[in-house]
């Protein structure tokens, strides 16, 4: 059984069908890059997986936890998949440490001392142990995003969803975040990332999904998808001319 099973998922916003029947199975430890033009539905797909958007049809399950609309099912699902956002979304009224501790204590009822120890370990893991007491507005974008990763990791998810996590960063800060993700991939974390970092996708990912107009248009290992695109849409997206 696959870790994440996405079956015939459809999603409409009003009359606009954004996802038109997506099928995707993700095995444990896979790193999947989802690429495509803006509006192709890639962020929506990611947001559906942990219930930030309700799906209009099909089914999604993560390690046996089925996506459903009620809070109990959602919570069970969200404990298994963490999510990292383009805009970091750190809680501005809490320190970096507080950000990483909060959900452990509130959701998992972990005692404070234990949550703090975990927070320190996770911040250490993303190279920010020394920023435990810093507030988000005292951190650079790259640092904030690393705290966000630590915050998600502290919940010990079995998969992470990354929604364009480097798109809001200054170019020189992108690599520090990608380095952390690369490390997670090497440690065997299952990752689903929407990204525009093609080089990173090529180097790190096990499979690349190219989405076009709400469908999985092409899928395969990066060496195939990037070197030998089958469809004109993907060729165009990758900036290859029709005769290449």
């Amino acid at each position: 059984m696959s870790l994440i099973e996405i079956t015939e998922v459809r999603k409409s916003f009003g009359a606009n069908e954004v996802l038109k029947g997506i099928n995707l199975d993700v095995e444990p430890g896979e790193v999947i890059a989802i690429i495509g033009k803006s509006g192709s539905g890639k962020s929506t797909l990611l947001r559906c997986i942990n219930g930030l958007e309700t799906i209009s049809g099909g089914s999604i399950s993560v390690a046996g936890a089925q996506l459903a609309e009620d809070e109990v099912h959602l919570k069970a699902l969200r404990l298994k998949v963490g999510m990292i956002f383009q805009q970091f979304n750190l809680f501005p009224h809490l320190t970096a440490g507080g950000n990483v501790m909060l959900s452990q204590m509130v959701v998992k009822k972990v005692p404070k001392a234990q949550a703090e120890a975990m927070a320190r370990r996770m911040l250490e893991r993303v190279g920010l142990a020394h920023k435990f007491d810093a507030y988000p507005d005292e951190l650079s974008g790259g640092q904030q995003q690393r705290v966000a990763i630590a915050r998600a990791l502290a919940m010990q998810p079995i998969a992470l969803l990354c929604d364009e996590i480097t798109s809001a960063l200054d170019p020189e800060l992108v690599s520090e975040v990608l380095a952390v993700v690369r490390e997670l991939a090497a440690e065997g974390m299952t990752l689903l990332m929407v990204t525009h970092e093609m080089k990173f996708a090529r180097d790190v990912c096990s499979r690349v999904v190219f989405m076009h107009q709400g469908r999985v248009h092409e899928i395969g290992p990066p060496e195939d998808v990037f070197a030998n695109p089958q469809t004109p849409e993907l060729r165009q997206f990758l900036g290859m001319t029709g005769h290449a």
Partner: protein
Amino acid sequence: MIEFTTWDILRNLLLAARWTVLLSLVSFIGGGLLGLALLFGRISPRRWLSKATGSYIELFQGTPLLMQMFLAFFGLGLFGVDVPARLAAGLALILWSAAFLTEIWRGCVESIARGQWEASASLGMGRLQQMRYVILPQALKIAIPPTVGFSVQVIKGTALTSIIGFVELSKAGTVVTNATFQPFTVYGFVALIYFALCWPLSKSSQILERKLNVAHRNH
């Protein structure tokens, strides 16, 4: 004819002002508690609940406070309930304050970026936990200046209770005027006492606003 000294006038007004202060406190605290409960209804994802609280707010914002007091005072009387003026006054002011505070706070809660809801949801928090630990602590900061500012409206609102016969500062002013025939002096003092109550509040609202520097944080 009895002569009244200025001190006589002032003393009686100040004694009555205690009722203004007390009524203001009761209305503000009561309205705040009710407003907080209504706030949860107003921003609830359940459509009917948010609609119902929305109608409540529109009803109380869309009618004069004076009418609400008349209705509380005479309306309950129709059902054979004998309502003392202070009860009707307090009730009407609590319901009225709650409507305005809910709307003020709703604005504050909705000014918190959507990403905060999404991030806390993705970490597995339920709606109440999101409110308690993520949204309200941030919204509170934004809410303090307008809330303190609104307390001034509550104090001035208590003046209307004089019409249904509750003896607070304004009513006392009328009574003292009738005895002394010095309306200008008496109402002058009444106004000064109201000002002494309200001005520090509006001033502190301004100071708080600057101090919390809400609009420009994080930029």
